[in-house]
């Protein structure tokens, strides 16, 4: 089992520290962070991993949102669906990530599909609960007005309920996205790239620069993405910040 576990990492490949002779003093002495090594490996290592990481996250949150959205609409309309859906989403949410990725390998192999199945699963509980909560917290008076003015159910959903649920929905997307950016580093364990790959390498080789560079990039990616989502949320809900005066 251990050998099997180690295999994907070896396969994942990437730069270890093979260049002690030719590297700078900083790299040979394995100091805290070697800027020269990072900048010379940016385009060959970090940029492609960063893009892979963004792709892994975007696909997971995108697909997760579609599934959670449909599930939340069903649960909003038919109350009995809430508990089963919550139970299933909570169950997959509790599976340890490392185990989940490994679990998928026998079925879907060392593929991006395996990684995405696991990552999507982790978004579902967060997104489902936020969408459902957002819909349920739509003020009753707005619903009464919509009904009394002759909006159909569908019109009420798209014109009143979903716009008013938007702050809660966006909050869910933010949490899910940041969570997935963090979890996607673990997906490198089954060799699907992303910023987890240089991290796994660095863990094996002890090369500090690589470890710090990949780790900091993952954190920065999470912060920047969250900031972008905050801007999107504000654009989508201009009314939420409109104050008296």
């Amino acid at each position, binding site marked *: 089992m251990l050998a099997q576990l180690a295999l994907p990492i070896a396969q994942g490949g990437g730069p270890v520290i093979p260049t002690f002779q030719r590297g700078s003093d900083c790299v040979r002495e394995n100091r805290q962070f070697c800027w020269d090594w990072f900048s010379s490996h940016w385009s060959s290592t970090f940029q492609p991993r960063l893009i892979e990481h963004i792709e892994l996250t975007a696909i997971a949150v995108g697909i997760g949102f579609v599934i959670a959205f449909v599930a939340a609409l069903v649960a909003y309309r038919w109350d009995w669906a809430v508990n089963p859906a919550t139970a299933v989403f909570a169950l997959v949410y509790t599976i340890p990530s490392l185990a989940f990725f490994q679990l998928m390998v026998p079925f879907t192999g060392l593929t991006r599909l395996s990684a995405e199945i696991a990552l999507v699963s982790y978004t579902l509980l967060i997104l489902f609960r936020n969408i459902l909560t957002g819909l349920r917290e739509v*003020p*009753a*008076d*707005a*619903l*009464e*007005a*919509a*009904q*009394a*003015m*002759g*909006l*159909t159910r569908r*019109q009420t959903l798209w014109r*009143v309920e979903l*716009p*008013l649920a*938007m702050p809660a929905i966006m909050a869910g997307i933010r949490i899910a996205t940041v969570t997935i950016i963090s979890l996607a580093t673990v997906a490198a364990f089954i060799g699907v790239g992303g910023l987890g790959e240089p991290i796994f390498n660095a863990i094996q080789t002890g090369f500090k620069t690589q470890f710090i560079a990949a780790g900091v990039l993952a954190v920065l990616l999470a912060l920047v993405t969250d900031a972008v989502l905050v801007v999107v949320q504000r654009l989508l*809900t*201009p*009314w*939420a910040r*409109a*104050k*008296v*005066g």
Partner: protein
Amino acid sequence: MEGVADPDTAAAAIEFRAVTKRYPGRSAAAVRELSLSVPAGEICVLIGPSGSGKTTAMKMVNRLIDITEGDITVGGQSVRSLDVTELRRGIGYVFQQIGLFPHMSVEDNIGTVPRLLGWPKQRIRDRVGELLELVGLEQSDAKRYPGQFSGGQRQRIGVARAMAAGQPIMLMDEPFGAVDPIARDRLQNDFLRLHAEVRKTVIFVTHDIDEAIKMGHRMAILRDGELVQYGTPDEILATPANDFIADFVGADRGLKRLLLRKLAEIELAPAANGERDDLPTIDEDTCLRDALSMMVTQRVSALTVLGTAGERRGTVSMESLAHFADLDRADADAEVEA
């Protein structure tokens, strides 16, 4: 419904025909065999203690609550025969919580029903401008959000929204119940002024007898789902049908009758030149009750009434006021007109 596309002029009569509402699992009917007709253009107040069925009765008009038995006609058409969304788009609805959509600008809120009816954008914009003026809001308010307004202003927006598509009928469920007394008084006055202009048929639910007397051309008093008395406020105050009504309108019903008339509407004794210069003066726009109150507080038995330009119109005495408060004379109106 006819008149929907013809803003502000159309009204339609409403008729309840033996309408009954029964909820499953409850033996007593919420509304029992309610029959009453509201002539086009009038305000009919439904009033009664809680649980009397007044809100239920109102909500059956636009079928927010289904009718169990009987029928309601609007402009001669049975509400049961109409498509429910179409019916509702033709009936304005104003309620205490207002229900403005917080995520939509005032303009989009007011334009909700016109948009559903497929009006062109420019027509909606023009209509919103008209309505803002009608309810006393600024044109620049159109782009703001409901959260930026006071309760009273929001209720004005709610009223504008309820008549945006020229709905001939308006249902109002305790519309001014959530605002402070001063704002409520202003909203009531403004609505009466507005109504004099647009003449919709209004069903107005309240539990406040003073509001009912002030707002209603007619009052329907309900108890336990049944109509106990239906008539003008003056008729009901003067000749309550039974002890329940007398009790409900209050022991001061004579005084309340004085609320119904203004000094300008009654015959005054001629202004005796020079003779009674010492009398306090009062505007003819004042209601009789306030005139009486002034007499009592100033310890006089007559007042000099001034016209809008400040000219002397005549004098009013305490005896003549008592005549209008007289509980045994339901025909006070007739006497004055004679």
